[in-house]
């Protein structure tokens, strides 16, 4: 059994309200797919996503793994930060990148400012879950 990655371009969620945006992401993750989203959620939406995830935890759905690469933290030089501030102002939530996976497939997501490492559970364990 393979892993399905579901790409969501910013254009697909930009017009959605917060509640619908969070629901859309969670619906995809609950289909055992890993979401790769262009841009990032607002901080309140991240909290909402965790809250709704907790409401939906069941024997089958164990929760999510979540990681965001934020352009704001990747620049280290003053010039780079200025450039990023400009890009962030222009793009808003479109800058950065978000990964959300179901906890029954994604064991752990390690992140540092520049990269995301995604560890999956082995297939036997996944099937048992």
């Amino acid at each position, binding site marked *: 059994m393979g892993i399905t990655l579901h790409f969501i371009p910013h254009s697909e969620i930009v017009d959605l309200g917060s509640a619908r945006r969070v629901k859309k992401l969670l619906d995809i993750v609950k289909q055992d797919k890993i979401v790769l989203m262009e841009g990032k959620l607002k901080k309140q939406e991240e909290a909402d996503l*965790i809250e709704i995830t907790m409401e939906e935890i069941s024997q089958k759905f164990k929760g999510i793994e979540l990681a965001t690469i934020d352009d704001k933290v990747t620049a280290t030089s003053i010039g780079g930060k200025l450039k990023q501030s400009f890009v962030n102002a222009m793009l808003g939530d479109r800058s950065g990148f978000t990964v959300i996976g179901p*906890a029954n497939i994604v064991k752990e997501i390690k992140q540092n400012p520049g990269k995301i490492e995604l560890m999956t559970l082995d297939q036997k364990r996944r099937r048992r879950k």
Partner: protein
Amino acid sequence: MKSIKSIFKKIFKNVFKKKKHVKLGLYGPPNGGKTTLANQICQDWLGENMGKASSMAHETREIHIKEEIHMKRDGKELTFNLVDTPGIATKIDYEDFMKKGMKKEEAKKRAKEATKGIIDSIKWLDDMDCVIVVLDATEDPYSQVNITILGNLEARDIPVLIVANKIDLKKANIKKLEAAFPQYNIAGISAKYGKYMDEFYDAVFDLV
């Protein structure tokens, strides 16, 4: 605009500081040592414990409040209500509790309570005046839960102190935490052994 709002908030806060009960929240991922720190604070200032701490994740599954903690240091005084919250996580698997020796039904019950505890912790964010984010200094600080908690506090303009707990352990790396969150004041402590609590209390006075 944001800085003007922040200045007004600070002025407003200082004017009414003495009249209200400051709610000081302990937030963080599970097993960071929030309840151990809450117990240490309560022992130091009230001579009693606040709750049960254990090595099993999600030991605290309800919000606990200890009212009227009165601190005195170097001529300064501070009274606050301490709010110990359940650890915030993005996943809960009852089988993890079974691995720690729980029976299936008990593990399922604990998992259900843990999910409710996380929801309550998030809902209570809006009620906090100041927050201490308690992180395990032996763990990788770049976790999304940490980033989400800090981001939500920042978005609400709630003052934050980060505690790098468990610095008595060899694996503890406070420098990594400082590199991950350079914009925050970070106090390194061992809540379990009451190490560096004086420095911690100084930081709390600066925070509130």
